């Protein structure tokens, strides 16, 4: 079936199966920054912005995205660049498999929460698992990014 939606501000028509999840549709159409880490919305790796809100695309049926706006990290390159440079400076990069999804979630959080406390930030990002960094350097970088008002 044909589904019309907006991906990174471009109108797209995807041919997909009724039971297909958005993650698979996006990857099939070469949005390769959206990746699968688990099968049940527990790891955060497949996050996309759905009308501005971070959602796990591994459990969102593509048909549900009809007429909605999807943003992947390709759609927020300037912000990802900013966050990426701070990550580099803080030594917060390791495998990076989850980094595009983390960038999307952090970007959404910055727009959603005004002057969040450190605990609020950790709570917001609790669904973005990382097995490499032990979180501390990532959090240092994210707090710096939140302070950046440019």
């Amino acid at each position, binding site marked *: 079936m044909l589904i019309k939606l907006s991906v990174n501000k471009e109108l797209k028509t995807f041919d997909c199966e009724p039971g297909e999840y958005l993650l698979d549709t996006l990857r099939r159409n070469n949005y*390769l920054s959206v990746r699968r880490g688990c*099968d049940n919305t527990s790891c955060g790796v497949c996050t996309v912005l759905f009308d501005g809100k971070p959602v796990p695309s591994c459990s969102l049926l593509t048909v549900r995205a009809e007429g909605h706006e999807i943003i992947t990290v*390709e759609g927020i390159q300037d912000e990802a660049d900013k966050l990426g440079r701070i990550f*580099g400076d803080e030594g917060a990069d390791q*495998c990076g498999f989850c980094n595009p999804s983390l960038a999307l979630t952090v970007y959404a959080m910055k727009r959603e929460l005004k002057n969040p406390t450190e605990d609020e930030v950790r709570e917001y990002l609790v669904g973005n698992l990382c097995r490499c960094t032990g*979180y501390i350097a990532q959090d240092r970088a994210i707090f710096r990014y939140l302070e950046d008002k440019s």
Partner: protein
Amino acid sequence: MKVVNNRIPSVDGLGIMKGRPAFTDDLADRSSLIVKVLRSPHPYARIVNVDSSEARKLPGVELVLTHKDFPRIPITRAGQGYPEPSPHDKFVLDEYVRYVGDEVLAVACIDSATCDKALSLIKVEYEILDPILDFETAVDNSIIIHPEPEIHEMFPIGFEPKRNIAASYSMHIGDVEKSIKESDYVIRESFFTQAQAHVMLEPHTVNARLDYQERLIVYSATQTPYHVRRIISQGLEIPLSKIRVIKPRVGGGFGGKQAIHGEMLVAYVTYKTGKPAKMIFTRQEVFESSYTRHPMRLDVTLGADKEGNLKAIDFHVLSDTGAYGEHALTVFMVVGSKVLPLYNKVDSVRFFGDVVYTNHTPAGAFRGYGAIQGNFALESAIDILCEKMGVDPIAFRQKNMMKERETSPIFAIMGEGTEGTAMDMETCKLDEAVSRGMELIGWKNKYPRVDLGDKIKSVGMAIAMQGSGIPYIDMGSATIKLNDDGFYNLMIGATDIGQGSDTVLAQIAAEELMTTVDKMVVYSSDTDLTPFDVGAYASSTTYVSGNAVLRAAQNMRKALMVEASRILETKEDEIEFDGKRFKAVSGKEITLVDLSNQITYSHEQKQLQVTSSYVGHKSPPPFMAGFVELDIDKETGEIDIVDYVSVVDCGTTINPKLAEGQVNGAIVQGLGMAIFEDVKYSAKGKLISNSLLNYKIPTRVDIKKLTTVFVDSYEESGPFGAKSVGEIGIDTPPAAVANAIYNALGIRLTKLPMTPEKILLAYKQKENK
């Protein structure tokens, strides 16, 4: 130093953050056949018959593969050097299935849905066999898990499959029983560690295609591309020269990707059909059907005299390797070899036991590699002994632990699967690590406990050591090529799996050639294009591959000087090179850019390229002291980690920020093993903690503070003074937390993980006494 020991951003972090295609599946051919595996619902069974006639009729089904399609060649998937210290006890597919999740058969279809449909149409008839699910009953059980005649060891590792023993080992120094009899204080305790899961975020992923030279090109999320190439060649009888393995960006490994997983099936499908094929493990498959940490029972006896000297250590260990014996012997030996030398002043040591087969998910390599299990047992036991003796556990350690310039006879006796290598500790800053750790955690004000009302605050600690590669076995190599315009390519077999080795190795080369990291373009882990390296394991990359890179850079410098000497018509020792410019005492000079352009295009043209290799002659251990501060809720038994102080001696930190990341990530993974990561099997042997919903790894809210510092240390044999740092961080958390729980509540937990339920139960039992 201008590049080494400086906080340089990783060479690839920015592109990865911005979502550039980089990982194995990002590079798969979009028309790939999908390969899926039918997995055993039984812990132990013989496949009597497979009826795939209906599935084969389904449009889009390319292949149905059973054990009858493969030559009967026993291999090990361990991903080690050759000959491997692991038994060859696995067939690509076999008539027997040996755990719930084992491979029954595979299908290759045009898409995922067709695979699912095909698998549902295949009827398998099993002869269900009684399994062994309790590893303490495996030895000499009437059930034999590996009865097949073809399996074998590559050299003596104590392999006795008829007794369900994959490997066994024993060593002793002095007379342990006599020492214990003569000791004034003796403690005995048994410890149990669980089958921790790696939970790297990228699941096991592989894809393959045939290129226009009819060669098999395999993209694999692996830690060991060269071993993958060799094992595919051996298992599928494809000439090694016909196989190219490329490791793209890897999303974490932690040892789980040292072994091969889907590579054999995908390589076979592509080789057979000529079509591209791919396989991605589901998260459930990663849990059930890849690897775990080896669960163990460790029986420890310690003896000490009245003067506070540790006199004897006796370690009997039983390790559960699950259905296959990958890393059975070597993980087992590391329990002793990278733990027992911590206390090098004892009169006698004994270390012995078996690694047994069971019908559980196989165990394999996992960061720490036995050292975390051994550390939990020994460092818990030291605190138990100190309690019995009435002495301070830190003072006791300071008196009895390894010091700089000392050694242990264990180094010469125990290697990894073979004899070891004698060495003195040229660098060992444990003393400083312990005293700084005490200050940083505020030990004096918090030990043993502070009652906060609803909660109790306490501290606990442990010391640890690891290694830096496997001497005389692990080899790394590096090629450096000079390009016109004066920049270099660094080509390395070493395998970046997210830990940052591409960055660290580029820093080493850039430092030696007095240039910057942006002029040292790194390409790693491609069996056609990069020189050999064993891969990312055994804490070897910074030390072994780093030494290879340093030698290559030194040789490039020599090659540059030869050219500069010719061009400037001056003897080499009368030319100075500062990384950008060659200046002769005569006043003549040429820039590197001009030199490189000249030898590329105009005069005496040639390609400057050097390759160097390195094999370690020792394995200098990094050391650390780990201190935890935690609050325990008296009502719920819940632990809140307030801070974890790590004071680490890893020699020079090539990249201080990335080194901190290695330690922090390992500490948190170790804390996961200590308090969160519970492994549960059903009564029928199915792993039921098989998803991230019921296997909890530490999240961002669990970890609020880590204090990681490095002591000044310079290991002469390492590149710019470096030792390893990849594994050392994981070893201390289980014992440090167990010791802190004891200091808080007076209860000694000996079984991991130390969940609130176990804490509360032990606490209530103690209160009711």
